């Protein structure tokens, strides 16, 4: 927005919201929504504690592992689906199904099958993030200009060369977007998983704060998680933008 000739960056309006929050926190709503200042104070209290760091470690590890698996499977699968009609028709219904299905309903199943603990969380991460990566990679591969592929072939490229020099690069913007969207979904998935399982990582903390009505702690934890998700999103989006220059010109 432009105010008297000065362009205000988009996110500056968050300051306004922070002020509103602070004021609301000092009213009756303060029981549920404590003032921001006190919540931020709590953030510094919570973060160094062992149980927070523990939760961070467990969650972070599961998150990284899960995403690595999702990317490792999702990208090749997406490329395969983008190139082979048969694979596409066999797999696409499932990818779409998992993409739009309420996966939260599946968390109890995974819990029952794989117990609680990291395996479950890793699986939840994979389940939430993989499908969008597959679908985006597939879209990226399909968007590749046929003449680029023909160009490589006309210079005698073999299958591997076409894959590593053309497909992977040409689909990179979509793949990156898929990874970003997948990671964001995974963050949500992990939180859903931990809320439902409530005893892994941040789930424990949520449960304790909730059962003791410690709203400031609760919000502090939320704030940390939200900022993490947002930062992650922005970082990945930044990476994406570095490749965006050619997304339009393929």
């Amino acid at each position: 927005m432009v105010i008297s000739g000065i362009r205000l960056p988009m996110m500056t309006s968050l300051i306004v919201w922070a002020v509103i929050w602070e004021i609301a926190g000092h009213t009756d709503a303060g029981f549920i929504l404590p003032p921001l200042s006190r919540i931020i104070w709590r953030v510094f209290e919570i973060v160094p504690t062992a149980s927070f760091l523990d939760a961070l470690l467990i969650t972070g590890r599961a998150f990284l592992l899960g995403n690595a698996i999702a990317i490792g499977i999702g990208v090749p699968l997406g490329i395969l689906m983008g190139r082979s009609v048969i694979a596409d028709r066999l797999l696409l219904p499932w990818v779409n199904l998992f993409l739009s299905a309420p996966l939260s309903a599946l968390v109890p199943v995974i819990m029952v099958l794989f117990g609680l603990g990291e395996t479950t969380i890793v699986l939840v991460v994979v389940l939430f993030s993989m499908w969008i990566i597959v679908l985006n990679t597939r879209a990226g591969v399909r968007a590749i200009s046929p003449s680029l592929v023909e160009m490589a072939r006309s210079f005698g490229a073999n299958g591997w060369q076409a894959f590593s020099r053309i497909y992977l690069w040409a689909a990179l913007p979509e793949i990156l977007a898929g990874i970003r969207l997948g990671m964001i979904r995974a963050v949500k998935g992990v939180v859903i998983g931990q809320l439902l399982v409530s005893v892994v990582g941040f789930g424990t903390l949520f449960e304790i704060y909730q059962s003791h009505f410690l709203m400031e702690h609760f919000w502090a934890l939320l704030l940390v998680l939200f900022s993490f998700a947002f930062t992650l999103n922005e970082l990945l989006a930044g990476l994406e933008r570095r490749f965006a220059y050619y997304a339009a010109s393929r």
Partner: protein
Amino acid sequence: AQSKVRVALGDVLSTETLAMIVALERAKEKGVDYQVTHFSKEDLAIQAVINGQADLGIGTPYAVVQKSKAPLRVLFQGTRLVFFPVADKSYKSWKDMNGQPITFHARATGTEAIGNIIAKREGIQFGERSYVPGSENRIIGMMKGQIKATIVDLANKNLLLEKAGDRFHVLPGVSEPASDETLFGQIEWIKKNEKQVDVIVTEFLRLWQEMAANPGIVEQERTKRKLMADQPKEVLEGITKFYTMATKEGVYAPTGGSAEIAKADFEFYAEAGQMQGPAAELKVEDFWYLAPLERARKALGS
């Protein structure tokens, strides 16, 4: 080297479950190492033991044992169902509750069992039953006017009366509380690991007896072992207060269980509709394995 005993706990590490952890810690000092897995629900803890993912569990496996014929046996009565029916003051007595809606924790759980027994005793029928897990959620519901009557645990009963004592009161509950959380395991595993089981049961019994004399012991042990150390001081400050109250109300019974207690449990759960009766025909040895507890009593000289 002994492998760790895997314990499945149907709750997070919190004030209520602290005593059990302290007992396990003490057992560890006696050479029985353990590893706790927390579950969000008791059912899951039971399942983990059935599936062999855990050796010992903490929960109420009666219904599952009867239903699925899983070879689980109870070793120790950890807590008892000390719950308090709370209701809007417009319900003066249980008679007023006839046909009225009531809220329980979840289907086929302790709170509903209590409700069933009371209904039978008072000769009334509840109206619509709804379920809200977590006592804290139920008292929020009460304060928001969404729940008129429910059954909550000690801490939340106190909280409710403190915050809205003008609107709500406690109705008479059941006198002889049944087992809530018990220590149990697969009988095969128990028999194979008698020594470790003995140590653990002994430590549970020892702590429970000490608690009866001095509720502050839990907090002392916690400080010594730095358990829950980084939890908010608001939580920690409440520990001794909780145990003082809880032992007084009989949540943590110092006996640890017996055939009579088992029988009483059968009565209760059968009456509550969670076990198939008649209670008199249920055999204690199908549900309990009392040998370790008896040995523990002997060891502690009581």
